[in-house]
């Protein structure tokens, strides 16, 4: 049986949860450990922490956040942001993360994906891909990979890069549509379906959730294995339990909250 996971995503800046719209305009959304505990109680299947701290000398803050979370919350935890070497992955895993997310550093040096997979197993490696639609209207859809928090175009085709990541050892893909992120217009379903069809590792959809119907579409139309959302949960509009109830009502198998 395949079930769909519901994953709240916490963007963490210097030890605080923040949320931006279209990768900018950050606002404070609370203490990460407190939020993680609340989402666990609501029935979250997993948590993603994304460290968006700009200065690398504050990375130790994130390790502390991961440690404190792992002492209180007993569901899977993925941590991404600033993972540039096997040592960074090891530090986060030792602190209590179950998986590490790599993004920019994997594009800069794809061997990093293989190195982390080799050392800790591929189930530990999540490749996060920030995708922006680059085809003109009416043309067959194409998406380009962006890095550095969405600021840098790479020229890479998203589908080709996703396949390469799986070949290198990615155990999961976390794909964010930059066109949709923060817009509340729903996932880029075409993007998710295209990747889901091409890659046989679990796919987490991210970017654009504004309603519970969007989560349902992600699973039923996008064919993804997990749906990730941030602001609908952080702002208290919906609980994780409500999200799961909506999925179940639509016939999607979920672990009940």
């Amino acid at each position, binding site marked *: 049986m395949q079930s769909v996971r519901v994953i709240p995503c916490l963007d963490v800046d210097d030890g605080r949860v923040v949320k931006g719209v279209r990768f900018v305009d950050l606002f404070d959304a609370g203490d990460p450990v407190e939020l993680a505990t609340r989402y666990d109680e609501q029935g979250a299947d997993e948590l993603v922490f994304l460290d968006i701290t700009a200065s690398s000398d504050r990375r130790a803050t994130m390790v502390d956040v991961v440690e404190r979370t*792992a*002492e209180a919350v*007993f*569901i899977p935890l993925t941590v991404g942001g600033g993972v540039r070497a096997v040592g960074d992955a090891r530090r986060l895993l030792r602190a209590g993360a*179950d998986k590490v997310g790599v993004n920019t550093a994997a594009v800069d040096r794809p061997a990093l994906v293989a190195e982390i997979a080799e050392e*800790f197993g591929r*189930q530990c490696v999540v490749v996060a891909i920030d995708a922006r639609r680059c085809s003109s209207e009416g043309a067959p859809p194409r998406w380009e990979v962006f890095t550095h928090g969405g600021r840098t175009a790479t020229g890479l085709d998203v589908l080709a890069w996703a396949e390469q990541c799986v070949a290198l050892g990615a155990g999961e893909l976390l794909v964010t549509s930059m066109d949709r992120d923060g817009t509340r217009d729903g996932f880029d379903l075409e993007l998710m379906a295209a990747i889901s069809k091409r890659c046989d*590792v679990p796919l987490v959809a991210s970017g654009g959730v504004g309603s519970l119907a969007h989560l349902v579409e992600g699973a039923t139309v996008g064919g993804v294995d997990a749906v990730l959302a941030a602001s609908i949960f952080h702002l208290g509009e919906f609980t994780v339990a409500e999200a799961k109830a909506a999925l179940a009502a639509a016939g999607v198998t979920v*672990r009940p909250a």
Partner: protein
Amino acid sequence: MIAVLDYGIGNLRSAEKALCWLGADAKLVTDPGEAARSDGLVLPGVGAFGPAARALRERGLDEVVEEAASTGVPLLGICVGFQLLFEGSDEDPGEPGLGLLPGRVRPLPAGVKKPQMQWNQLHRPDGMASASGLWGEIPEASWVYFVHSFAPEITEDTVMTCEYGGPVAAAAERGSLWGTQFHPEKSGRVGLAILANFVRHVESHRRP
């Protein structure tokens, strides 16, 4: 004391932290002598079978596990730590397992995504080994978290299965040896209840 065997493979803190959260006296142990004096052992593990089996042997912890099995010290293997208790794995045919449980570790059935990285439901198959204290009060169809591409064969020691392209062994038991293919330390309330049962069992079988 419960020794969580630390042989350098993956996230070992989770099991330790979950046991400590339950109030158990648990710690990560690298020294075989110290592990041999513990009241109970947890053998965690993620990643591939071969490197895990080699790492366990290089640190001399394989003998601690074998000794525990022969003297009846409670032992819980988790994920790859569970798989190591079997005779071997198709993942790394050249590297033998500990052979404490009969059977081999096989790939998950064809036609499903690998790894299975999700929550799935536990079932207690009819006619299989009766569920002992470790699984007590764990209701049929409870949800737990799996991350794996291989699983042990279903044998007479299997006490729980899940459905993933067919029935897959989720937990086994033989004497004082227990194992879960899923991660109890990452399975929320259900997982903590299983670990609490293990802690209680260890405490009632403490060395004099």
